[in-house]
């Protein structure tokens, strides 16, 4: 049981990183990235390929995942950041699908639909059975560092400009801000965090395969961030843990409701995910922890 809780918490930390990544792009800069899962996949593959094929150490894999995904993210945004936000949503959805298709087809690089196995788990041989707990602590430390950095970003002039662009890109441009540059930077930061999350997953599970990176995962992250509070880093973290808890706890329903087949149970679970997201958008659009906004003078 304790092992199960540890693995659940590890997934929670990884999902929280993804929710933080989306929060930079959607929450702060107002650009909905429906392709979060694509950046997550890019990070996972960069690190997995470097460590399994080229024998690079895990630390180098993680750093390469961060930098590589940030570059990919910045390059894709460069052409897209001028688009209306709903066009951007469509194109990023397409981006993630293309990433998955490439991973499925370019077997020379990604081993195709077989997936990459034997991704090194750091210090596994030294730690033995303690690996899972140690890796959880490592993930939580990375998560804490990410929250710390993003809170600094949110309070910084850079964060204020992103919010200004989110509210009205034209006014931000009139005040002399180069909107495109800020958007690309926001996407690069968000992409880097998603890439790091992907690499963390790969070195935890030791196995990645294209079918992991489906659009449904992106919807989970949208639910996590909307539930937690769009624009709020702590909200993103809490939302992610709540979503993982919900997804995992439904597994036990099989024992409680035996007449429901696994397929129907999965249908009920995903229906509920959609329902929750919809109810939050309609009734509680600011989430559990609303975005902390600076007080206006005179109020």
């Amino acid at each position, binding site marked *: 049981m304790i092992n199960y809780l540890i693995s659940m918490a590890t997934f929670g930390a990884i999902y929280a990183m993804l929710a933080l990544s989306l929060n930079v792009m959607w929450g702060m800069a107002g650009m909905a990235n429906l392709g979060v899962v694509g950046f997550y996949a890019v990070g996972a593959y960069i690190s997995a390929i470097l460590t399994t094929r080229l024998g690079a150490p895990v630390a180098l894999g993680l750093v390469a995942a961060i930098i590589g995904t940030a570059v990919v993210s910045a390059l894709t945004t460069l052409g897209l950041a001028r688009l209306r936000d709903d066009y951007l*949503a*469509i194109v990023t959805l397409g981006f993630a699908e293309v990433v998955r298709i*490439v991973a499925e087809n370019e077997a020379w690089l990604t081993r195709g639909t077989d997936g990459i196995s034997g991704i090194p788990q750091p210090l596994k041989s030294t730690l033995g059975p303690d690996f899972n707990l140690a890796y959880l602590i490592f993930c939580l430390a990375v998560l804490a560092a990410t929250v710390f950095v993003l809170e600094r970003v949110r309070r910084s002039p850079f964060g204020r400009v992103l919010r200004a662009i989110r509210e009205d890109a034209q006014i931000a441009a009139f005040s002399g801000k180069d909107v495109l540059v800020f958007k690309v930077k926001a996407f690069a930061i968000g992409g880097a965090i998603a890439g790091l999350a992907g690499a963390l997953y790969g070195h935890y599970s030791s196995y990645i395969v294209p079918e992991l990176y489906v659009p449904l995962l992106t919807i989970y992250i949208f639910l996590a961030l909307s539930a937690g509070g769009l624009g709020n880093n702590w909200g993103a973290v809490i939302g992610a843990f709540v979503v993982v808890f919900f997804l995992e706890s439904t597994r036990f329903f099989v024992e409680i409701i035996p007449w429901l087949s696994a397929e129907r149970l999965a249908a*009920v679970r995903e229906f509920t995910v959609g329902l929750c*997201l*919809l109810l939050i*958008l*309609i009734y509680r659009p600011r989430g559990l922890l609303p975005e902390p906004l600076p007080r206006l003078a005179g109020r």
Partner: protein
Amino acid sequence: MERILQLFANGVMAGAVLALPAIGFTTIFAVLRFANFAVAGHMAVGAFAGYVVNSWLGLPAWAAVLAAFVFAASIGVATDHVALRPLRGYRALTVAIASIALNLMVENALRFGFGNAPRNFAIPLMRDLSFGPIHIDPQQIENTIIAVVAMIILFLFLSLTTTGKAMRAVADNPALADSKGIDPDRMARIAVAIGMGLGGIGGMLIGLDASIDPLIGFRSILSVFAAAVVGGLGSVPGAVLGGLVIGLAEELSLLALPSTYKAAVGFLVILITLTLRPRGLLGPRAA
């Protein structure tokens, strides 16, 4: 050369079918101004409605097409009323994300009822017709005809009836249409009914060609978007043209790429269009 002709013919027929959900998507966008991802789920609704009528009740193809339209349209209007109407007036992006949530619910309701396993329509296998070097499945010809008839009916509706003209007026200038006493809620309902209904027929025709399952719409949604975006979001003739462009591009891509990359073609075409001509080929408004 023969291969090019064959792919060209396949592309035109696939494009005609693809144009239906693309028209649906673009019609909803024209009137309500948001990208409605739930078109995917309603394509599946139409496919399953047609399947039940055809395979379980044993009725012919035209009845199945009618059922696909009616079911997808009425479920579309009902779910839109409950799920998305409360969000009218919100940012287009928020409504688009809500439509993704709605889409997930529609798909999983189908999955609960019918399961994930692919199902086939009860249609006889027919020998391919040969036109010189080109071979065509009669089913594809029938699908193309059905798609074209549906489009002609839609064009007649939009250009001849008062309601159709009122809808175009709303798409063109909502404030002016409102001041002329055109009820925006009614127009929204009609747009959703047409959009989801045509999506439903499109889903069924795609299913006739292969098999159906709850994700049948979602798998082709990128191509549908691509068709609507290439034609110009909000333009019905644009969606027809866009459908043909995407259908042809996907088939002709087989000359250079393995078929598994077909799904990436739509994405590439969207990128190229938005970079070179963000309004699309026949788009009424700048993006």
